[in-house]
């Protein structure tokens, strides 16, 4: 039965079909669980496994504080090498994001799934290493030789806010699969001299208008603390 519910939930969330729940007078008691949910981003360890230059780890957590409101956080560490046409650099650093999620999904009795919107404040501490660059000139009359630079720009910071959309599905008891997309907008950065923060851990690629998009796919476990009957 539970599997069927999950299936219907997934299908309906993709197509937006309003399914009709059986409003039967069965004996399931409505129980609201309050607890701490902790998990990891399962995408980053997979990337780390296949790619030596890019490493990452993200731990996620949330606490239900009101009926539909959750205090949420993501903490992570990333090493990433970015290769552009004329530059190659490595970004290393840690970040923390804190904020709230609002669950907009009305669950059926006994289910605890979420489709949520959220806001976050993010801060990152990192360094950038300019590995090499090729001076850019119009045309290729002289073949410009790449310059092995290796300059390390240390103690850089960035702060941003984000709008988050996501969903969490309880697949096994208290075990959740989740995915979310975050639209980030930079508040302030400490920029390196004669270079730019083109990638910021937690923020992802920094676009020209100082915005960015990041994703995560999470596996998390709910540690129940309080059970409330509604």
């Amino acid at each position, binding site marked *: 039965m539970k599997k069927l519910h999950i299936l219907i939930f997934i299908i309906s*969330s993709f197509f*937006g079909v309003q399914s009709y729940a059986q409003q039967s007078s069965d004996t399931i008691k409505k129980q609201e669980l309050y607890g701490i949910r902790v998990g990891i981003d399962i995408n980053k360890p997979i990337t780390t496994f296949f790619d030596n230059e890019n490493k990452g780890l993200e731990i996620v957590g949330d606490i239900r504080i009101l009926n539909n409101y959750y205090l949420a956080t993501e903490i992570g560490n990333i090493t990433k090498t970015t290769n*552009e*046409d*004329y*530059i190659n650099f490595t970004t290393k650093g840690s970040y923390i994001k804190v904020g709230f999620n609002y669950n*907009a*999904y009305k669950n059926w009795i006994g289910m605890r799934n979420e*489709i949520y*919107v959220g806001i976050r404040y993010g801060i990152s501490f990192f360094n950038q290493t300019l590995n090499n*660059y*090729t*001076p*850019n*000139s*119009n*045309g290729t*009359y*002289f*073949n*410009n*030789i790449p*310059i092995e630079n290796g300059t390390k720009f240390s103690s850089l910071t960035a702060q941003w806010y984000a709008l988050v*959309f996501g969903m969490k599905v309880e697949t096994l008891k208290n075990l959740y699969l989740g995915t979310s*997309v975050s*639209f980030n907008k930079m508040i302030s950065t400490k920029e390196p001299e*004669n*270079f*730019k923060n*083109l990638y910021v851990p937690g923020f992802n690629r920094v*676009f*020209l*208008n100082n*915005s960015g*998009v990041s994703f995560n796919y999470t596996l998390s476990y709910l540690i129940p603390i309080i059970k409330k009957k509604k």
Partner: protein
Amino acid sequence: MKKQIILLLLLIIAVTSCEKDDICIDAVTPNLIIRFYKDTIPTELKNVQLDSVWAINKSKLSNYKGIETDSIAIPLNLNENSTKYILENNTVKDTIEFTYTRSDVFVSRSCGYKTIFNDFQIDSNTNNWIKSITINNTTITNEKAAHINIYH
């Protein structure tokens, strides 16, 4: 509510994914701009009949082959602190050697770094068809004005 969220999500993805900073449109390393003036009246531009222009040990610059012009823009060698050019005018050749120091300035993600030139000087030159040369600015950062004048 659910429908609205999904619609909003698609809208934001559509809007943000269209941004392009993959194409370099900013000014990069400036070329050396040379203008040709009349030797007898130094304020008057005078066309030169260029057979060809090339840097030593390099092929001839394709856009200055057998043309009549009063100005040219030629690249400087970014791998060394000097560039030697040969300018051929009506089968008469003149050689000019430029010296400079280079510094690289960050432009953008897609453009990377551009080089600007300081202490720009003419190390040596021959005077077969060229009468004299003046340097307008010893720092070359853009292509807005001529950097050197050649009188002939």
